């Protein structure tokens, strides 16, 4: 046997051998698709305001509509294709949040509505909710103390 690599040397060798993601391409795609989703949201928001809705109602209804669109596109097996192309561009907007809840719900429907859909629905969004809400509570406490 010749010289064998240590684990550290092998990791370094693998890093050199493994192609990296095409960062620039992915960033451009994410920007274009993410931007487009936001423009659609803005368009809906402006439309609702034109119809005479107030600021609060417009914001709530826009979110509801964007979530519905995300959920619908997930159900139609389209959102995963958008995601494969856009990466973070379609994960970060609220439509991506809808996708992260609807996709496990669809996937685990075969295990029933309680142990499948119910238990697994938040398997991806769950951590986001836990730490998002926790962070907002901490921010709220700091805000209260500094007031």
């Amino acid at each position, binding site marked *: *046997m*010749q*010289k064998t*690599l240590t*684990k*550290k040397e*092998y*990791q370094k*060798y*693998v890093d050199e*051998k*493994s*192609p*990296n*993601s*095409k960062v620039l391409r*992915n960033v451009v795609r994410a920007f274009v698709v993410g931007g487009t989703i936001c423009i659609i949201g803005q368009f809906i928001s402006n439309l609702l305001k034109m119809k005479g809705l107030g600021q609060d109602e417009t914001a709530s209804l826009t979110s509801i509509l964007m979530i519905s669109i995300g959920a619908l596109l*997930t*159900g139609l*097996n389209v*959102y*995963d*294709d*958008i*995601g*494969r192309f*856009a*990466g973070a561009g*379609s*994960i970060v907007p609220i439509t*991506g949040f809808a*996708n*992260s809840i*609807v*996709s*496990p719900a*669809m*996937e*685990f429907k*075969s295990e029933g509505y309680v142990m499948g859909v119910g238990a697994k629905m938040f398997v*991806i969004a769950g951590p986001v909710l836990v730490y998002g809400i926790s962070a907002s509570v901490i921010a709220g406490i700091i805000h209260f103390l500094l007031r």
Partner: protein
Amino acid sequence: MATKRIGKQTVKLQNPPSIIATACIVGPKEGEGPLRLYFDEIIDDELFGEKTWEKAESKLMRETFAKVLKKANKTAEDIDYIIAGDLLNQCLAANFGLRESEVPFFGVYGACSTMAESMSIGSMLVDGNFADNVVCLTSSHFCSAEKQFRFPLELGTQRPPTAQWTVTGSGGAVISNKGNGPYITHITTGKIVDMGIKDVNNMGAAMAPAAMDTIVTHFMDTGFTPEDYDLIVTGDLGAVGKEICDELTREQGYNISKVYNDCGLMIYDRQKQDTHAGGSGCGCSATVFAGFIYKKLLEGVINKVLFVATGALLSTTSSQQGESIPCIAHAVSISNTIS
């Protein structure tokens, strides 16, 4: 004293059993790949008429078993053992797919190395006169594997370029003490090798050292050289792992480049089919062997093959706990002639 052992990890079969038939069924994506003409059946619906992915994979296994019996001109009563396994927890596809087979059954788990593992055990059973006919069988399914190991199918994520695509398909072989080849002549059983790779999206790199270890050990134990083989084929190292395995093996003094290929690279057109580094899964090496390699052996286009299926022995729990990926590779030497 074990009389059939040579070297550290190899068995030389004294009455080399024959592979008398193979069969395979693949999914729609594999059916669009470069090997489509070699598969026995291509299903056009990934659910295969079932309600769940798990049932679909079990059905793949069951139908492949029926097909391979038919091609071997045998009935279930002629079969002494089935040795089968798959990727799903508790080997769900094999246990449920074969529960009505009425044949003594050994369930094995070697991750994606399962086909070579089952063929190794099967041919030793036949050579040792413990069985006349053994069926070796395995399967994987893209959708059930994604569900168990990764994310829901409809989740919009991007895969890194080193990621691989789990093959939907099942492959099986009948190993018999009567037949005119191709013969299984040597078996080199792999040991678990862990070089510390933790990236579950780079299984090829994790498995490559295990493949190298088994290939080099096979050469040292048997005295064979790369020139003795028409084809040395690893299971599912993909583009990254294949290159690493090739280089590591060369560093050990064996240049296999001329005869070396990887089932994960053979089964898909990577550019057109968006499969990144290539195919993976138990079904990858099983269908490429049962569909393509076996037929090329029968045609005499190739006469001696070293079939090295590779497996990453991780679990979802181990990777969440930050563990590296232990890997294994099993080699089966198949020849049209007995030397």
